[in-house]
């Protein structure tokens, strides 16, 4: 089963555009990332620029309304994520617990929905989604 480990860094909701993570923290995190990869559990990972560089879109009455970041009311924001493949939630918690995170960081663990998790009528209605996922591109990296 797949889990997302969502990194929630306290204070990141107020970070100014262009804020970068600390080089030492990145180096520590890269070691951890490598341990995930060597164990064969890592599927994907990314870091996110601060919300002050992002936007929110709401759909009240079906009409899109765009608000640029930062989001004054936000108390928690996402800083990055790992997608891992493990055998249980316990194993996901174990991996998260090994992360060299600081006291201001929380990792939220969430199970990813698999097609087989849905009842058959929903599977039928969503037929083609698996194909779409397979077709979706891969990041092009230099």
């Amino acid at each position: 089963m797949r889990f997302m480990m969502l990194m929630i860094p306290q204070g990141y909701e107020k970070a100014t555009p262009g804020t970068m993570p600390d080089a030492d923290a990145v180096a520590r995190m890269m070691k951890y990332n490598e341990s995930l990869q060597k164990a064969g559990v890592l599927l994907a990972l990314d870091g996110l620029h601060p919300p002050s560089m992002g936007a929110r879109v709401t759909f009240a009455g079906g009409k899109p309304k765009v608000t640029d970041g930062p989001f004054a009311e936000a108390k928690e924001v996402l800083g990055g994520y790992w997608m891992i493949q493990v055998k249980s939630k316990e194993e996901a918690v174990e991996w998260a617990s090994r992360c060299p995170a600081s006291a201001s960081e929380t990792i939220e663990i969430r199970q990813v929905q698999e097609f087989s998790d849905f009842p058959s009528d929903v599977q039928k209605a969503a037929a083609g989604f698996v194909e779409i996922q397979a077709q979706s591109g891969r990041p092009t990296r230099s």
Partner: protein
Amino acid sequence: MRFMVLVKADKNSEAGVLPDAKILAAMGKYNEELVKAGVMLAGEGLHASSKGARVRFADGKTTVIDGPFTEAKELIAGFWMWQVKSKQEAIDWLKRAPFGGGTEIEIRQVFEPEDFGAEFTPELREQEDRIRAEIGRKR
């Protein structure tokens, strides 16, 4: 540049209510357009936070709290990863999404190695490339 498009949780997603056939069909069509345009890199839905956990870190010790996280206002129900040329292009795509009232989406730019500049040393970059190559093979 890549953007992560975060779909916020609501009462239904947190209660484990699955979308109906009509919504699934509309979303399927939208996803197909994203793929055809070469925009969609990934897309996943998440189970309710009641099936999840949170890990907090303090003084080298960890505390595990099981879900649901009813106090959290910023829970996520799913996400897309998009490849676009600008934040505006991501917003334009999102405006076409078949969402009804009450849905809130957050768009966040993803860090690329070149964003880090000199801080991202050749050693770190080599390590990053190696990890990405390995997980690319796994997928």
